[in-house]
């Protein structure tokens, strides 16, 4: 039996028939495996939820104890479990803290659902581990050859040079609350920046969670408690929605920055009113998508969310069969 026969796309999401569970389902289901904590993957009100310890903690924090699954079952990376007729394990996806690929095996065939992933190094989460398989389900957020993410430390250097050039202004960096925010802080620390990083209120709980899981982030302070003038020359992190809104008005002559893979394209940066675009992404870029799809050696590749057409066309060039799943409900923006 081929993997494409027991892993099936349904309206609710990807369904593993022999295990009777969904992966990242879009609506409440009795049994769900969750790859990571982003809102479009980890939705509320499932029955039994299985995920990494970190992802479960993130779900409890974001959805509330009562909506993060009636029962929660943690699974360590690499630990194997038999669920109905499949063997299931989780492998690191390198996307955010706790992010995992769901690896399923049945009768000598293996399917891997990668969730979201990246191959670039990230000090805040375990690195992606490619798993050879017959069916690989991939994202395609940045599946165009114009998306080649630069070295993130070069982007951090760009930010720090700008801070030096405009010491009286406040650099406010828009970043998604889960993953991007903590990675930015870790990159700043890696680049030798040990000053305080000021946080918008919406970013604080997840930073606390990361630290509880052993990711050190250094001197973090709430932006609202900064004394007058203290933010001049400082770095403030805020959700993307806040950087160009009323919240940012309190800041001294802010330099609006946004950390996202979309910042590669000028028009996207312009339309967001960004003064300093930072190309830092938690998703695989074009090269990483192609490398990964070839590395896992799968005969079939299913493409979930993003630009399927370019990726499927390129895979065909390598003799790999690609298919667009078009699962509605995943979002392309902001977390990228």
């Amino acid at each position, binding site marked *: 039996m081929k993997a494409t026969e027991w892993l099936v796309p349904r309206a609710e999401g990807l369904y593993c028939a022999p295990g009777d569970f969904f992966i990242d389902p879009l609506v409440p289901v009795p049994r769900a495996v969750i790859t990571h904590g982003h809102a479009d993957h980890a939705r509320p009100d499932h029955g039994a939820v299985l995920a990494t310890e970190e992802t479960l903690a993130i779900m409890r924090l974001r959805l509330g104890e009562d909506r993060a699954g009636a029962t929660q079952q943690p699974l360590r990376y690499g630990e194997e479990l038999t669920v109905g007729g499949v063997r299931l394990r989780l492998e690191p996806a390198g996307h955010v803290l706790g992010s995992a690929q769901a690896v399923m095996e049945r009768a000598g065939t293996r399917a891997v659902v990668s969730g979201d992933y990246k191959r670039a190094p990230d000090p805040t989460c375990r690195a992606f581990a490619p798993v050879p398989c017959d069916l690989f389900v991939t994202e395609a957020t940045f599946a*165009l*050859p*114009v*998306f*080649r993410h*630069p070295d993130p430390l070069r982007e951090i250097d*760009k930010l720090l040079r*700008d801070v030096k*050039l*405009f010491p009286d202004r406040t650099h406010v960096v828009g970043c998604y609350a889960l993953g991007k925010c903590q990675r930015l802080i870790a990159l700043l620390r890696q680049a030798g920046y040990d000053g305080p990083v000021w946080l918008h209120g919406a970013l604080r709980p997840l930073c606390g969670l990361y630290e509880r899981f052993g990711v050190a982030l250094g001197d973090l302070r709430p932006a609202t408690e900064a004394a007058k003038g203290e933010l001049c020359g400082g770095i403030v992190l805020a959700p993307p929605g806040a950087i*160009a*809104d*009323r919240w*940012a*008005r309190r800041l001294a*002559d802010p330099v*609006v920055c946004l950390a996202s893979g979309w910042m*590669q*394209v*000028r*028009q996207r*940066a*312009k*339309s967001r*009113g*960004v*003064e*300093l*675009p930072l190309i830092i992404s938690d998703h695989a870029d074009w090269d990483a998508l192609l490398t990964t799809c070839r590395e896992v050696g799968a005969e079939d590749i299913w493409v979930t969310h993003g*630009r399927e*057409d*370019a990726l499927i*066309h*390129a895979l065909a*060039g390598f003799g790999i069969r690609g298919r667009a799943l078009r699962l509605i409900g995943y979002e392309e923006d902001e977390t990228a």
Partner: protein
Amino acid sequence: MRLFSALLERLAFTPARTVKLALLRAYFAEAPDPDRGYALAAIAGTLVLPAARRSLIRDIATARVDPVLFELSYDYVGDLAETVALIWPVREAAVEEPPSVSLVVETLRAATKSEMPGIVERWLDASAPSVRYAILKLMTGGLRVGASGRLAKTALAEIAGIAPDEIEEIWHGLEPPYRPLFDWIEGRESRPDPAGAPVFRPPMLAHPLEDADLAALDPEDWRAEWKWDGIRVQLVRTAGGVRLYSRTAENIGAAFPEILDALDATGEAVALDGELLVLRDGEAAPFAELQQRLNRKTPTGAMMARFPAFVRLYDILFDNGEDVRGLAFDVRRKRLEAWVERVRPERMDLSRLIPFADFSELAALREAARAASIEGLMLKRGASAYLPGRPRGMWWKWKRAPLTVDAVLMYAQRGHGKRSSYYSDFTFGLWREGEDGPELVPIGKAYFGFTDEELRFLDRWVRHHTIGRFGPVREVEKALVLEIAFDAAQRSTRHKSGIALRFPRIARIRADKPAHEADGLDAFVKAYLAH
């Protein structure tokens, strides 16, 4: 090229002038010669390079990239140079350094057509995307820097601690890569001497006159002339050449070859100050007709015949090679009249002085002048020397009272820079009778005229009365009346309403006025566009 491309990138996203200046200063301080000189030329628009065909760039890219992927990408990015810069697949082990600005410029000038593809490929292989982008934009001549030449000169002046006009005065005698300029700015050499070059002289500008200022003026001391609604220009002819400059020192001669020819035909060494206008039936035409010419870098014969340009002369700066700027206005005026009388130049006439006994007579004249080509009056002190900049108490511009209309706010959009968190671009409209009763037709957009407090009010109002969103634009309830002031109304085929306003701004927020009492389009057309 790395420094230059980083500068370009940062400038492109930065709206604030002070920030742009700081970025330019930092660049000029850091970049070496002659790179920074060519960069300065690229910003000021004085870098003349043989333009590469866009097809060359497309061809070298599609030779390396799958055409389907290229099209999908181009479709998404929307700009050829940017697409190629991003998509360019580097061959293994590119060991070369990215080219310097000067290498790119000098190579583009010297390379033959057949050498070009190979050279460009090597450059792209050696460079990161932002550097590739800068190279490709330099090649195709599509570099939009997000800073003007004036701004770059201001940055240089700030480095040297001098007035930007000091650079302006010699600028047009210099050439890229401007090494003597940098030598002077950085104190290694004395100021370059423009000698016989047809350089630009910083113009003398006027202050707006408030009615309250009038009481302090003695009519005896003042000369009046019309303020024509064209663009202020400077005509310069020396042994070194002929130039037509805009008020901001841009060399716009190529767009108005008939003016250059007329000036050259005088055979005089002269510098003149005047207003560039289009002639219609022997009269100055409204600004919109000149706009047709300004939109073109080089005009067609048909354009020149339909919109013939001429210059109405205000002043003379150099007469037969002699600098007369130190003389009084009255004396210069005599010299100007004598010059016109003697030379009888083509395509030039004298801006007439308006005799008057007192200011109330002048005010009446000003109000009666309804011609669209007149913006108002100029008052010039008879004893004033021609001084660069805006010296106090010398020249006044006395604009006609603005026209106003009560319009209804229809759409709002966020502003840029400091205003990016506010809804500060407003589209407003007037009523007309539609098929299903009264409807609003947009007649213009305004993004200034209000105080900070009014802006906060408008921003809040927009947020609370949004009824639809289209990308960055919010449609609002048709419930807020704005009093819009404007300088003139013109017919326009580009707008749905058929009219375009000149300098529309928000004069007052009429929250007190019900929307249905705002003005109608028909009445507006009758009042302002009847002639």
